[in-house]
C-alpha cells in the first residue's frame, strides 16, 4: 500500500512537472508561421528565389527588432517543382501539420488556383506571388486569397493602353499554346480593340510550350507582313524567343510587344545579345524610378544577396509589408481581423504607394511600358522611353470582377 501511494504521488509530480515544461514552451515558442510553396527547381527558380529572399530579409529585420506582436516570424518554404500535385500536398502539409498562419506562393497559375481553393476551405489567408492568371482574384477570387502580382487582365489593359498610342493597324498574335499565353493575348487584344477599334488581326500562330525552334514561325509571320506582333510567351519561352528574334533579325523587321520583355530576369541571361527595340511591359526596374525608396531597397537587397533585385523581390517586399503591417494594425493574430485590415490597406514600396483593393483583394500595381535598348554602363539591355501606367488605370473595373465571379 505504501509503495503504491508513493508510486502514484511521484507519477503525478512527474506529470505536473512535465506540464510546466511543455505548456510555457508551447506558448513562448509559438511563432508566426508563414508557409511559401513555390517552384525552386528549373528556370522558374530564377524568379521565385527573389520573392523568398526579399520576404525573408524583411522577416529577419522584424525578428531582430523583437518580433511582431510578441512572436518571432518563421518562414517555411516548400518546392513544388512546378507540379500541381506536389505543390498541393506541400500546401496541405504546411496547413495541417505546421499550422501556418499565412500561405504564400506560387509561380504556377494552376497550382495557385488549387492552393487558393484549399485556403478558402481551411480559412487560411493566401498571398499569390507571381502567378498571373486573372482568375485568381477574378472569377475564382474569395475572401482568403490576395494577389500582389499583376495578372493577365492588368497586363492586357496596360499593354493596350501603350499600343493604342502607336500607329500600328495590322497585328499578328503569336504565343505559347496554353492558358497563360491565350489569356495574355486575349487580354491585350480585347482591350486594344476597345481603345482603337480599327485595328485588324491578320492571323495567329501558336506553338507548344517549350518550343525549341521558333525560326519557321518567325519566317511565316514575316511573310504575312503585319505592322506589329503581339508575342504571348510564358516564363519558359520568353528568353528563347528573344534569342531567336535576334538571330533572325525579327526585331529589326517588325516591331513586337512581349510582356516582361523589359524585365531584368528576361534580359540579364541574354547579355548584350538581346534584341533591341522590343516593346515590353514590366512591373519593376531596379534602375527606375530613381526614388529614394527604390534606391534603398536595391541597396539593401544587393548587400544581403550580392545581386540586383528583379521583380520577384518587389513581390516579396510587398507581401511582407502587407502581411506584417496588417497584423500590427489588427493588434493580434486573428485571421478575420487580419483580413479586415489588409483590405483597402496601402503600403510604401519601391514602386511607390500600393493599395490592396478591398473588393477583389488585388494589389493595384503600376505597370511600366518601355523599349529595350543597349545603354553604356550595363552589360545587358535595359528599358528606355519608360511610360508609367498607374495602378488604378490598369485594374479591371469592379463591375467586371462581379460579372466574372457570378458565372
Amino acid at each position, binding site marked *: 500500500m505504501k509503495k503504491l501511494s508513493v508510486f502514484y504521488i511521484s507519477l503525478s509530480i512527474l506529470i505536473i512537472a512535465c506540464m510546466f515544461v511543455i505548456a510555457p514552451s508551447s506558448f513562448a515558442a509559438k511563432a508566426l508561421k508563414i508557409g511559401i510553396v513555390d517552384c525552386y527547381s528549373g528556370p522558374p*527558380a530564377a524568379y521565385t528565389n527573389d520573392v523568398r529572399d526579399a520576404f525573408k530579409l524583411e522577416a529577419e529585420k522584424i525578428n531582430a527588432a523583437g518580433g511582431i506582436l510578441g512572436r518571432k516570424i518563421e518562414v517555411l518554404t516548400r518546392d513544388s517543382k512546378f507540379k500541381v500535385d506536389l505543390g498541393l500536398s506541400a500546401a496541405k502539409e504546411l496547413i495541417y501539420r505546421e499550422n501556418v498562419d499565412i500561405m504564400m506562393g506560387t509561380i504556377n497559375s494552376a497550382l495557385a488556383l488549387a492552393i487558393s481553393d484549399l485556403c478558402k476551405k481551411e480559412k487560411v489567408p493566401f498571398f499569390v506571388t507571381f502567378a498571373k492568371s486573372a482568375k485568381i482574384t477574378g472569377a475564382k477570387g474569395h475572401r482568403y486569397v490576395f494577389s500582389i502580382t499583376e495578372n493577365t487582365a492588368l497586363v492586357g489593359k496596360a499593354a493596350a493602353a501603350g499600343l493604342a498610342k502607336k500607329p500600328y493597324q495590322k497585328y499578328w498574335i503569336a504565343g505559347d499554346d496554353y492558358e497563360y499565353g491565350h489569356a495574355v493575348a486575349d487580354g491585350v487584344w480585347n482591350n486594344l480593340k476597345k481603345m482603337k477599334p480599327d485595328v485588324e488581326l491578320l492571323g495567329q*500562330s501558336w506553338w507548344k510550350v517549350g518550343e*525549341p525552334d521558333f*525560326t519557321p514561325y518567325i519566317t511565316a509571320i*514575316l511573310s504575312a507582313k503585319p505592322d506589329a506582333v503581339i508575342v504571348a510567351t510564358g516564363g519558359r519561352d520568353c*528568353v528563347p524567343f528573344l534569342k531567336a528574334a535576334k538571330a533572325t533579325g525579327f526585331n529589326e523587321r517588325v516591331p513586337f510587344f512581349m510582356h516582361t520583355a523589359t524585365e531584368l530576369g528576361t534580359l540579364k541571361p541574354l547579355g548584350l545579345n538581346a534584341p533591341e527595340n522590343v516593346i515590353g511591359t514590366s512591373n519593376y526596374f531596379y534602375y527606375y524610378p530613381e526614388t529614394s525608396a527604390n534606391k534603398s531597397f536595391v541597396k539593401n537587397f544587393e548587400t544581403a544577396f550580392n545581386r540586383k533585385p528583379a521583380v520577384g523581390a518587389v513581390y516579396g517586399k510587398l507581401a511582407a509589408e502587407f502581411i506584417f503591417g496588417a497584423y500590427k494594425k489588427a493588434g493580434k493574430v486573428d485571421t478575420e481581423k487580419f483580413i479586415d485590415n489588409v483590405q483597402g490597406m496601402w503600403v510604401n514600396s519601391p514602386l511607390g504607394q500600393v493599395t490592396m483593393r478591398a473588393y477583389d483583394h488585388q494589389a493595384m500595381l503600376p505597370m511600366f511600358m518601355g523599349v529595350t535598348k543597349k545603354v553604356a554602363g550595363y552589360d545587358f539591355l535595359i528599358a528606355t522611353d519608360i511610360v508609367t501606367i498607374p495602378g488604378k488605370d490598369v485594374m479591371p473595373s469592379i463591375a467586371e470582377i462581379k460579372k466574372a465571379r457570378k458565372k
Partner: protein
Amino acid sequence: MEFAANITLFALLQQVLVGLSRTTILFIVASGLSLVLGVLRIPNIAHGSLYMIGAFLTYTIATLFGQSALGFWLALIVAPLCVAVISFLVERGLFCHLYEREHMMLLLFTFAFSLVFGDMVKLIWGSDYRSLTAPLFLQGSFSISGFPFPRYNLFLLIVGPLVAAGLWFLTNKTKIGKIARAAAVDREMVGAIGINVSWVFAAVFVIGCYLAGLGGALVAPTQNITQGMDHAIIIEAFLIVIIGGLGNIWGALLGALIFGLTDSIGILLLPQFAIVFPYMAVVTVLLFRPKGLLKSVW
C-alpha cells in the same frame, strides 16, 4: 480557320529551307536510333538523354573557351566523343551481359538509364536552362529576297548531307558497316562465321550514340538547353524511325524529311494548328503503310 495571307513562292521556299535544317537534326538523331534498333534490336530510350548530354557538354566545353569560335568547334568534336565514351562504358558494363536475356530487359534498362541520365544532368548542371551562342560568323542571317535566313540553319543544311553521306559510306563501303548490316539480318550466322558479334554490337551502339551526341551538339546554339530536351526528341525520333521503317537509315532520312517539312509548311499555312501537322503526317503514313515507308530490317 485563317490562312496566312500573302503566301508567296519565296516565303514557301524559305519555309522549306528552314524545315530542311530542322530535318538535319532530326535525321542525325533518328539515324542513330535506327542503327541501334536495326542491329541490336534495342529501342534505346536513353538515346534522347544522350542527345541532351551532348548539348550540355557542348555548352560546358564552349563556355570553357569563352563561347568563342574555337570553343564551339572544339565542343562540336569533343562532346559527341564524350557521349560515345559514356555509351561505350554503359554498353560494355551492363548491356552486353543482357543480350542473351529477354528483350524486355534491355528495353527496361534503357528506360532506367534515361531516368538516371536525366537526373545526372540535373545534378551536374543544375536545373537552370543554358544558352549557347553560335560562333560569330555563324550568327545573324542572310536576307533572301527580304526574308531572313539564319546562317546557322544554312550550316545545318550543309552538315546534314555530309553526315548522311558519311553514314552511307560507313554502312556500305566499310567492313564494319557490312558486318553490322549482316548482323542486323542474321546475328547467329555472323557469329557462326567466327566474327565476335558482341564487339560488333558494341561498335554499332557507340556509333549510334555518337550520332545522338552530335545531334545534341549541333542543336545547342539554336535553342535553350534544358531538362525536357530528352523527352521531346525521343518521341520525335521514335516516330520518325517507325514511319521510316525500323532499322532503315534511309527510312530515317525520309521520316525526318516528312516530319521537318510538314512542321514548317504547316506553320506557314495554318499557324494556329501548326503543332498538329507532323503528327497528322505520321498518322497518315501509318494508315497507308503500317510497316513504315521503306523496308524495315526486322
